[in-house]
C-alpha cells in the first residue's frame, strides 16, 4: 500500500503544530480536505498546502520528508498506524501517543514521548531534554510503550516516568530518570551526574560505571538476576547494543533514599 507523503517545501517562517496529521484523523479524508488543515501557531494562518507538497496515499502510513526542527507535535495523541519522518523535528513528538509507530530519521526536540501511553517511538538521531517527561502541571510522564533513541538524550530523560521502557543507545544528560515513579530506563552510553535523582520506584540500567550517583543510593552488591535476563530479552528486540549490557552480573543500587527508596539502578561492576 502506498503511504501518504508530505514533502516540506522549505523551512517555515513560524513554528508549526502538526498534531492534526496523525493516521486516525486523516484516514477517510480527501486530498483537498487534508490540504486545508491549519497548522499555524501564530496569528498568521497557514494551511498544509502552503507548507507541504502532498502525495496522496493510504493515511494509515504517513511519511514526512525533508523535515525540519520547526515541525512540532508530530504524532501527538496517535492511536495506530505509522508515521515516518526524514529529518529533524521539533518539540513534543509523539506526546500522549497511545499506539502505532513513530520513526524519526533525524533528531527530536524536548518532551518527545511526553506522557506517552503506548506504541513505539524510534529516533535515529538525538533527543532533547525531558524525553518522556510531563509538561508543567502534570503529575506523571510516560505511562507505557517503548522509546528507542539511537543517539544521545538531553537532561531528565524519563522524568516522572510511570510505566513503559526507554532505551538510549548513546549518552544521557544529567538527572536521567529523575523522579521516576516506575518503569524502565536503559542508558547504554555515558550518563551525566545524579541519575535516578529522587526516583521512587522503577529500574535504571547504566552502561558505564555509576559515578556521580547521589549518596542517597545504597550499594546492594553484585547480582546475576533472572529479571535482567527478562529485560535483556525484551530490550534485545529493540536494541542489540543495549541488550549487551545485561550479559554480565550487574551492581544494584537501591534508592533514592531521599524519597521512597524502592527504585534501583543497575550498573556495570
Amino acid at each position, binding site marked *: 500500500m502506498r503511504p501518504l507523503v508530505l514533502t516540506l517545501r522549505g523551512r517555515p517562517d513560524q513554528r508549526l503544530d502538526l498534531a492534526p496529521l496523525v493516521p486516525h484523523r486523516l484516514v477517510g479524508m480527501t486530498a483537498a480536505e487534508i490540504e486545508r488543515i491549519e497548522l499555524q501557531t501564530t496569528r498568521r494562518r497557514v494551511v498544509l498546502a502552503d507548507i507541504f507538497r502532498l502525495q496522496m496515499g493510504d493515511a494509515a502510513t504517513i511519511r514526512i520528508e525533508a523535515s525540519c526542527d520547526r515541525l512540532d507535535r508530530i504524532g501527538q495523541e496517535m492511536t495506530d498506524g505509522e508515521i515516518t519522518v526524514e529529518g529533524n523535528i521539533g518539540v513534543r513528538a509523539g506526546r500522549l501517543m497511545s499506539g502505532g509507530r513513530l520513526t524519526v530519521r533525524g533528531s527530536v526536540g524536548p518532551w518527545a514521548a511526553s506522557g506517552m501511553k503506548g506504541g513505539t517511538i524510534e529516533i535515529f538521531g538525538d533527543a532533547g531534554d525531558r524525553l518522556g517527561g510531563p509538561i508543567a502541571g502534570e503529575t506523571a510522564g510516560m505511562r507505557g510503550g*517503548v522509546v528507542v533513541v539511537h543517539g544521545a538524550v538531553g537532561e531528565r530523560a524519563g522524568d516522572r516516568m510511570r*510505566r*513503559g*521502557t526507554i532505551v538510549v543507545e548513546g549518552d544521557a544528560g544529567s538527572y536521567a530518570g529523575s523522579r521516576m515513579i*516506575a518503569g*524502565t530506563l536503559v542508558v547504554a552510553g555515558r550518563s551525566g551526574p545524579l541519575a535516578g535523582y529522587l526516583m521512587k*520506584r522503577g*529500574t535504571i540500567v547504566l552502561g558505564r560505571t555509576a559515578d556521580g550517583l547521589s549518596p542517597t543510593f545504597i550499594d546492594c552488591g553484585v*547480582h*546475576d*538476576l*533472572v*529479571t535482567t*535476563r*527478562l*529485560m535483556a*530479552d*525484551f530490550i534485545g528486540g529493540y536494541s542489540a547494543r543495549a541488550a549487551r549490557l545485561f550479559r554480565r552480573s550487574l551492581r544494584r543500587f537501591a534508592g533514592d533514599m531521599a524519597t521512597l527508596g*524502592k527504585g*534501583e539502578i543497575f550498573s556495570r561492576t
Partner: protein
Amino acid sequence: MRALTVKGVRIDDTFAEAFGMRATAVIITADSIRWARQAALTMAGFATSVIGCGCEAGIDGDLTPAQTPDRRPGVRVLLFAMSTAELQKQLQTRVAQCVLTSPGSACYAGLDGGEALRLGNALRYFGDGWQISKRFGSKHYWRIPVMDGEFVCEATTGLTKQAVGGGNLLIMGRTAPATLAAAEAATAAIAKVPDTITPFPGGIVRSGSKVGSKYKGVPASTNHAFCPTLRGAVETALDPDAACVLEIVIDGLTSDAVAVAMAAGIAAVIKLGPKRGAVRISAGNYGGKLGPHHYHLRGLLP
C-alpha cells in the same frame, strides 16, 4: 464385548468415559533442569486425583532454554481441577509452597488467553512491601526478594475450560512384571504427547476404583471386578490368563490431546506384544451416562 486382537493383544470393544475439567499450566525454570524438575515434581506431588487431593497435576514436558521466557532450562506443569475456585486455590498454594521455596526457581504462565488465574498477583505479598512489579510489553512480572536473590513470577496464567480429565486405559497381563512393563511403555509414549499428563505415581494406578462402597460415606472403593485375587469369588471382568491389571489415567488440555495420548499408549502396549507385556487392553466407563467425553478404543488403534 471383545472385538479384535491386534498382534496378539486383545482390545475390548469399549470406551473410556471422561469429564470436563478446568485446567491451567505454568512454566517453572531454574539454573539447571535438575532443579526445575525438582520444583515441578514437588508442586505436582500429592496431586493424583481430585477426589482426595483437590487437583490433578503432572509434568507435561521439559523445555529447552530457547523455549522459556528467561532462557533457562524449564518444565511445564499442568494442573486440573473441577472448579475455577479450586484450581486457583491449588495453583496458589502449590506454587507458593513448592516453587517459590525451590532454589533458583522462577514461574511463568504456561497457557495464554482465556480467563486469567492469579499467579504472581497472589504471591507478591510474600515480598512484604519489597516486591517489584515489572512490565515488559504485554508481560507483567513480579519480583519477590528471597534469600538466594529474587523469585520472579508472572502476574497471571491462563485458564481453559476445554480440559478433559479421566481418559484411561486398563492394561491386563499374565504376570505383574509383564503388565508393569506394558504400562511403563504406555506412559513413556504418553509422556511425549503435548498438553497431557498422567497424574498417578509414574503415570500408573494399581488401585482402580468403582463409584460407591458397602460402607456408608465412602465415595469410592476397590474395583473388585478387576482384582485378580477375587476372581472366582465375585463377578469378574478378568480372563483366565490375567493375573494383574494396571490403569493409566490421562488428563489433557483438550479432548483431542487425550485421544492422541490414549492412541499412543495403546500403540506402545501393542508394540511390546503379549509375550513381554500385556495380553488385553480395556477402558473404564460408567455406562456412558456420567461423562460427556467417550474414547472408543476401536477408533484409537494404530
